[in-house]
Structure formats: structure tokens, C-alpha cells
């Protein structure tokens, strides 16, 4: 292990060690982190009727085409990857003209209400004036054209979340100041409707008599986002990406926010109660109790059966944000699995504090880990299972460790009670697959000796 990485890693124990986080990745460490642009793109991409235009070289658009498994109830425009495809000439002479023309062409072809223009590394260096070009295009077409300041080198993925939130703040700003709030109306921040997750929560809330004004950004549209300032409460799931937006909306529009999580049964129940309480809605609180007891009655027996099956198994977690890691620790606890390693790419100090409080002594906590560290700690700790993204999957499999996909592209929801069951089922399908027995019994190394 590299000396320079020591301060990013801690073992939970009696002496609490503050780990270093939210710092630049160390060169050559094979960080699993993505870039500013990717952070911005994943937050904004679920806006379904927007044109998402990458101002930059083709790779940036290619690697993020239809990147999220966000579902739409309407437009599918967001699933296209548009790019100005900058070439050497543009880098030398500037890409401004090309960008203006690209916006013109897209506006004429698709008539979108809004165009998001993402800045990439080279645009930040060659200095195309995105603001001016977007402003002029907006006037030409009578639509909103919003720049996203997401040049890759200005920070890490978290800087991209912030860039996306800045753009969202511009988008939701009403022409006239809004004073009237829709009573009992809430915005749901930080759900990207992966595999329909936001729809599950919408259904729960409707059942207890609460309407979601707009989800930011899962299955959202330009029109719906415009109504965001009218809500009387913001609930926030993915804090890593949305904390900044929520606090800004409180500051500007006086909308208070509460943190919730619909991942796992425990969090789902707590969140429903919190929302009802946050709105001071007693009827909703009563209905929430009914919903919770009905769903627990349906779900708990199934979860209990899995608990028995999973007894004694150990899990490792390596995901993008701290919120996700915290939820996963709780979810594993619900199904009786001990967590022996937790890491994130972009977790924040307060999230690491929560993680430290949640896990048992001896658990490894690490920030911005690399494959060599993941390998070492998973093997040292005897993990049977890893949760992570696409890049981590083959590593786990090569080590003979089961794997849970917790990536943007998943095809089954992990939210609410349906999600809790899906999660347990996915754990079952990988942890209890006969393939591991076959591999153990197969004793490939003995065959190699024959």
C-alpha cells in the first residue's frame, strides 16, 4: 500500500480516526472516480424533455450516452447524446461558432423547451464563452439554453453535482417572485428514477395523501421543474448531489428541507413518518402507519427467511456517495449481513462520521480507494460480497467474491419495500449461487497440476 494513501484509510476502533476525504485523487493511484462533467451529467440527464448537448470531444458524449437507467413517463429526448464533436481546428480557433450552430440545429429539429450545454475539459482551457453563446441562442429561439460549468479538471464528481445544481437553480428561478406556496406540496430531491424508483415513492406518498410537486430530477420535465419554488417542503434523498440545491432553495425560496432515505425497510418507514411530521399532517401520519404495517407484514417474513440464509456472511461496500454507503450498511443489517469494509469515491466528512458510528469495530473505512486496496481489504477481511459499480464487478468475480450492482444502469428498483425485497433477492442470487460451490469443489489449481 502507498504511504500517501494511509490518511484516507481507517479501521473502526476505540480511538476514532478522522479520515481524509474530499481531496484530489493522487496521481497513479488508479482512482475509481469519474469527473466533474460526469457528475453534472448524471444529475441533469433524467430531465426528460431537455436536449443534453456536450460541448467537447466525442468521447465525453460517447461514454455517457443513455448512461442512467432513469425511466421516463413521457419524452425520450434525454436518452440521446448530442455533441459538438470538437476537432483539432476547433481547439485552435475556438468552438463557439460550432456550438451556436449546434444549438440552432437541435432547436429546429427537436423543439425542446430547454437545452443544457455541458462544458468539458478542453472548453475550460480554450475559453469558449458558454454564457454569452447560450444567452444569444436563448433569445434566438425563445427557449432556455443553460450552460453547465463542468470542465473535468476543476475538481471531482462532487464539483459536477454542484455545477448541475447551479444550472437547476437558474432553471427554476421564476420570472416573478413567488410568495404563495402550495400547501402540503413537496419536492423530492435526489431520486433519479432508476428503474422507476421515484414512481414507487410517489405511489406511497399519494396513498398517504401527499402529492409530489416535482422529483428532482427523476422523470422531470422543464414545466414541472419550473414549479419547484412553489413547494412547501423539500425532501432530499441523495444528499451528496442535492445538499447544495436544498440549502440554496431554503435560502432563496424559504423552503425547508429534511433528509430522508427510501433504501431499506427501516429508512423507508422512518422517512414516511418524517415527511408526515414535517408537513404537520396528522391524517398523513395515520395513513403512513397503516401503509407501513401493511408493507412490513408483506415483506418481513420474506426478509426473515433470507436473514437465516445469509447468517455469518460478510459484505464490502464501495460506492459513489456517502448517502448510498450509509443506506447500504443499514440494508445489510436488515438482512443479517455484517459489513467489514466501507468506502466511497466522494463521501463527505459528516457522512464518514455517520459511517463510523454505524459500523462494528474492525471495519475498514476508506475514501477514494483503488483496486489494489479493495482487493487487499476484501481478502483480509474475508468479504463474501461486494457492492459497487461496473468497474468493481470483474475484480470481485476474479477474487471469487459475490457482487451486487449498485450502479446508474440497474434495471430493478432498490427503493421502498419492493426495493428491499429486490435487494435481498439480488444478494441471494449472487451470494447463494451454486457457482461458488462448483468453483470451490472444482479446485482448478489441482486440475492445473494434473
Amino acid at each position, binding site marked *: 500500500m*502507498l504511504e500517501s494513501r494511509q490518511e484516507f484509510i481507517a479501521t473502526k476502533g476505540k480511538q476514532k480516526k478522522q479520515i481524509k476525504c474530499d481531496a484530489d485523487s493522487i*496521481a497513479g493511484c488508479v482512482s475509481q472516480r469519474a*469527473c466533474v462533467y460526469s457528475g453534472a451529467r448524471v444529475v441533469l440527464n433524467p430531465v426528460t424533455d431537455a436536449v443534453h448537448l456536450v460541448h467537447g470531444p*466525442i468521447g465525453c458524449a460517447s461514454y455517457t450516452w443513455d448512461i442512467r437507467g432513469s425511466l421516463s413517463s413521457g419524452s425520450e429526448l434525454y436518452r440521446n447524446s448530442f455533441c459538438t464533436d470538437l476537432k483539432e481546428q476547433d481547439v485552435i480557433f475556438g468552438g463557439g461558432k460550432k456550438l451556436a450552430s449546434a444549438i440552432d*440545429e437541435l432547436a429546429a429539429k427537436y423543439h425542446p423547451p430547454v437545452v443544457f450545454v455541458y462544458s468539458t475539459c478542453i472548453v475550460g482551457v480554450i475559453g469558449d464563452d458558454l454564457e454569452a453563446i447560450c444567452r444569444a441562442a436563448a433569445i434566438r429561439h425563445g427557449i432556455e439554453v443553460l450552460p453547465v460549468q463542468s470542465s473535468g479538471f476543476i475538481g471531482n464528481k462532487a464539483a459536477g453535482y454542484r455545477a448541475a445544481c447551479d444550472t437547476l437553480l437558474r432553471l427554476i428561478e421564476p420570472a416573478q417572485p413567488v410568495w404563495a406556496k402550495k400547501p402540503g406540496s413537496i419536492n423530492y430531491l435526489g431520486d433519479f428514477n432508476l428503474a422507476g424508483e421515484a414512481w414507487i415513492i410517489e405511489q406511497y406518498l399519494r396513498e398517504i395523501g401527499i402529492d409530489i410537486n416535482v422529483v428532482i430530477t427523476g422523470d422531470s420535465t422543464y414545466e414541472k421543474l419550473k414549479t419547484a419554488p412553489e413547494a412547501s417542503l423539500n425532501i432530499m434523498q441523495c444528499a451528496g448531489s442535492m445538499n447544495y440545491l436544498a440549502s440554496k432553495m431554503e435560502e432563496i425560496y424559504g423552503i425547508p428541507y429534511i433528509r430522508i432515505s427510501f433504501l431499506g425497510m427501516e429508512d423507508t418507514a422512518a422517512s414516511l413518518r418524517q415527511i408526515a411530521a414535517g408537513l404537520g399532517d396528522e391524517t398523513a401520519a395515520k395513513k403512513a402507519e397503516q401503509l407501513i404495517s401493511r408493507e412490513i407484514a408483506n415483506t418481513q417474513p420474506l426478509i426473515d427467511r433470507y436473514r437465516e440464509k445469509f447468517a455469518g456472511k460478510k459484505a464490502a461496500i464501495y460506492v459513489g456517495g456517502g448517502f448510498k454507503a450509509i443506506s447500504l450498511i443499514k440494508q445489510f443489517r436488515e438482512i443479517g449481513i455484517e459489513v467489514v469494509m466501507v468506502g466511497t469515491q466522494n463521501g463527505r466528512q459528516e457522512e464518514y462520521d455517520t459511517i463510523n458510528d454505524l459500523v462494528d469495530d474492525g471495519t475498514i473505512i476508506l475514501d477514494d480507494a483503488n483496486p*489494489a486496496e479493495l482487493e487487499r481489504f476484501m481478502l483480509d477481511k474475508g468479504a463474501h460480497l461486494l457492492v459497487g459499480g461496473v*468497474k468493481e464487478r470483474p475484480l470481485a468475480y476474479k477474487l471469487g467474491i459475490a457482487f451486487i450492482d449498485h450502479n446508474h444502469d440497474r434495471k430493478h428498483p432498490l427503493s421502498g419495500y419492493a426495493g428491499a425485497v429486490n435487494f435481498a433477492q439480488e444478494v441471494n442470487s449472487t451470494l447463494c449461487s451454486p457457482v461458488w460451490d462448483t468453483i470451490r469443489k472444482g479446485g482448478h489449481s489441482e486440475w492445473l497440476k494434473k
Partner: protein
Amino acid sequence: MAEKMKFCRDVNENPCNMCMPMGGIIALKGIAGSMVILHGSQGCSTYMRRHIAEHFNEPIDVGSSSLNEKGTIYGGEKNLEQALDNVRKVYQPQMIGILTTCLAETIGEDVDRFAGEYQRKNGLEDFPLVTAPTPGYGLSHDEGYWFTARRILTCLTKPADGHNKVNIIVPNISPADIREIKRILELTGIEYTLFPDISDALDRPFERPYTKVTGKGTLVDEIKAMSGAVATLQMGVTVEDAFSPGQYLQDTFGVPLYNVPLPIGLTNMDRFMTALQEITGKSVPDSLLQERGRLLDGMIDSHKYNFQGRGIIFGDPELVYALTTACLENGVHPVVAATGSRSERLAKLLNLSLPDGSEPLQILTETDFDRIRQWSEEGGANVAIGHSGGRYLEEQAGIPLIRIGFPILDRVGGQRILSVGYGGTMQFLDRVTNTLLEHKHKSYRKKMYEQFYCAAN
């Protein structure tokens, strides 16, 4: 052009290609014990690793110099030095390739100088360190692959005594394809250096303990001696001379270059075998002749079904050329042949391959999937052949996709797709024929009912 088609001039709508360093990584992964560092911002290496990992289902480690704002303004030499130090410590590679990205090239980093100084400072003059300028805004991943392969030779190959090996230079094809080519070479009794050889590093057997860097691939010592080979047989008819590794060996060391198409399709495979015969004087072994005979037999069995095929072929130029000509010889009419790369040679070669009086073939270079879709609908295509980007054609235009090439992101087994050689061609052809049959079976009852029953009643 039909009036209903609408193309944007200054927008790429759904890319059909990736960027230069992506191809560079794949080429470097084919060298034994290699590690790659991308000089640029962190995201580039992560995205490319993600794509490659998903295609091959293998762990893909690529370092990054992780340039931040400071490095961008004041230069990234320190970052690159640290990256080299750390990668050497953790991976102990036998060879390192440094690829640049948009960012490094835009701020004008002199990577060659850095690399040279690093070697001197650390007493690593003999350590194989390869640099390749691969700005993402330059050309596509295809040129990135070929150019990096050429750079590997430029940096490592030295004048060598003559030996009896043949250099076999391959495009970015699947590990299964590479293994098939090796099998054919071994059956024929030919000694060879296959370059770059990803067949083991990117399709590893399950083994314990896991090692971060495999010792598998083309050996650096073999690369050093490619200058002394009898000849180079390169599957690169679409490759420009400036990017061509085979051309470099011929120009610099006088190794005769035989440039042949990728051996998919009977004619293309025959050309490969003929070139081998010319170089080595060895005859085609009986078992391969049997395979050839079986392919002929299969081509006859399927010819009527194939004649109903109207194909869209897209992807890397070399693959598009081989697949399009393979379709032509089997009566599958190519409606669109497309690549996101510039490749002027592809267009020229394909025009020459079209038989007299055949229906027009729309050749698209530097194109995107929006154009491909519109031309495919215009030409009444009923089968698409190419990488995962084509799922868009499947979804939007209902054209079934046969997955081949790179990347395959939405199915497992991209690394196992076999299409070269007589046997591989048969497998490819069966996939085409069976897709056409399946498509027909799904729709013909309804079609007949609507066309005849509804008309009569």
C-alpha cells in the same frame, strides 16, 4: 436524398465512435506485463475503464495523472512523475504506456521529454516506456489503436538479426478471434509474433491467486525483434500509412508488408491463407481445407435466406470492410456501411468491392447513429451488424442487431464472439441467417393475414 431525412451538420447525434486514448489502452493491454497511464483529468481513465471492463468482463486498471486545476495551469509534469512512481510501486509492470488526452494536448504537455527525463532520473533507461499523443479531439479510438500500436514499435523495436518468424498485426478484435488466428497459424506450422495480443490479458481464466498484471500478451523482447521478421502480415487494409505499424516496419527495417483484410468471409480468409503461403511457402493443412469445405457447404445451405437480408454494418473500419464484403459474397445486400472514424480508405475499398449493377450502398464515414438510422430506414434494412450502440437502431427502428465488435455493453461475452477464419465465418453467417429467419417467423403470419385475408374479407 429523401426529403424527410434531417441531418445536423454541427452536431453528432449518438456517437458511433469513441476517442483516441480508448484505442490506445486496448493496444497497450496486448503487451505482456503492461500498465497504462492516461495523462489528463481523472474522469477519462475511469470512463474508458468502465467501458472496457463491461465489454471484456475483466478488471481493467489504468492509471491517471489526475490533472487538477493547478496542473492544468502550471503543467502536469509533477503529476505524471507521481503517477509513474505510484504505478510502478503498486503494479510492478514490465512496461508502461503513457497516453495523452484532450487536456494534456491542449495545454501543450511535452510528454516525450518528461518520459526521457524520468527514465534518466530513475536509472530506467532500459525500461520500456512508450508514449503516444492521443488527444480525444484528434481522431477516433480506431486511429488511437493503430497509432499507439505503431508508437509501441517506434519506441521499442530495434534492428535485429533476421529470424524465421512472421509478424501478425491484428486490429481490435475479440480475444476469441485472436485465439482462432493463433490456432490457424499453429495448424499451418508457422512461427509468428502476434501483435498486439490481448487474448489472454483481456480474457483471463479464473485462477487463484489473482494477479494485478498478467505476464501474458506480446512480449517486449518479441516486439524488439519484429524488425528481423521474414515479413509482416497485417490485417489493416483501411489503415492510413501514417498510423500503420506494418508500414513502419517496412519503411524502417525493410520488413516486407502484406496488408490483407480481416479474415472474415471466404474470400478474405482465402487472401489471408494465400499471403501466408506466399510468405512461408507452406501449404494449407488438410484440416483447414475441411473447414473451408464446410463453410462452402453452409453458404449454399443458407443462400436463399441470406438473399433476403438488407444489412447495416457499422463500427471500426477494418471490421466494417470485412463484414460488408462477407455479406456481399453471401447475397446479404449491404444498405449502409458506416463508421464513426474518418477512414477514406474504407469508402474507396468498399466502392471497389461492389459488384456491377448492384443496388446502391450508402457509405457513411465520420458518422453518427442518427444518420445511420435515417439511411437504414430509407434503404429498408432488416438486419444491423455492429457494436452495442446499435441497440438504438433496434429500439428506434425495430431493426434486429447482431452484436459484433467493440464495445458490447448490453450483453455478456463480447470477448468470446468468434468471427474469423473459415469456422468463425460460418458462425457469423449463421448468426445473420438465423436472425433473418427469426425476424421473418415473428412477422410473416400477421403480414400474410393483413395482406391477403384482410384484403379478401
